[in-house]
C-alpha cells in the first residue's frame, strides 16, 4: 500500500516537473535550475 502511495506521488511529481519546465517561470521571483533532460 505504502509503495503504491509513493509511486503515485512520484508520478505526480514527474508530471509537475514536465509542466513546470514548459513554463518560462513560476509565480515567484525564484527559478530553480531546470534539469538538463527537461530543457527545450
Amino acid at each position, binding site marked *: 500500500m505504502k509503495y503504491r502511495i509513493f*509511486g503515485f506521488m*512520484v508520478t505526480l511529481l*514527474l508530471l509537475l*516537473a514536465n509542466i513546470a519546465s514548459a513554463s518560462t517561470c513560476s509565480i515567484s*521571483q525564484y527559478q*530553480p535550475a531546470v534539469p538538463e533532460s527537461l530543457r527545450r
Partner: protein
Amino acid sequence: MSYLPFSRRCASYLTTRTGLAPEKEIILTYAIEVLAINTINVCLALLLGFFLGVLPGTAACLLTAFFFRHTAGGAHSNSPWRCGLVTIAVFPLIALLGAHLASSGQPYIDGLAAASIGTGLVKILQSAPVDSPSAPIISPLRRKKLKTGSLIILSGIALILIFLRQSPWLYAQQVQLCLALSVLWVSLMLSSCGRRMMTWIDGISIKKRGKGGE
C-alpha cells in the same frame, strides 16, 4: 545544480522507496523545489493579504502574475528566500494600492487599465519571453509560441478588465486595479530595470554581527 537540502532529501527518500532510476532523482528534486517554494510563497502572500483586508485583490494579483509570467517570463532572484520575501510583500502591497485607488473614480481606473495593457503589449513585443540562465529557452519555435501565448494571455486580461468594468460586484473596481497594477509589475520584470532591481536585491549583503559588534 544547487537545490535546497530539503528538496534533495525528499527526492532521495522517494527514489529509494520506489526503486526509481537514479537519473530521475534530479527531476524529482526540481519538482519538489518548485512545489514547495511556490506553495509557501502563495500561502504567505494570501495570508498577508487577508491580514491587510485585501484578500480578493491579492488573489487577483497572484493569478495575473501566474498566467502572465508563465509565458512572458521575467527577472529572477538567485536566492529562494529573497525571492520569497519579494513575492510575499509585493502582491499584497499591490492589492493594498489597488484598494486605496479604487475610490479615485472610474475615469482614472480606465486610464490606468488602458496604460497597463499598452505597457504590457509594448514589453511583450520588445522582450518576451525573458528566460533565465537556470531555465534557458533553447528552441526558437518554443520562443515564438511563448510570445504568442503572452499576447493571448494579455488579451484575456484586457477582456476581464472590460468585463469587470460593467460588473456590479462589490470588489470589481478593486480587482480591476489589481489586475492593471499586476500587469505593470510583470512588465517591469520584463524590462532591464526589473532585472537590475533583482540584481540589486541579490546584492544586498546580510552579514551577521560578531559578539563585539564587529
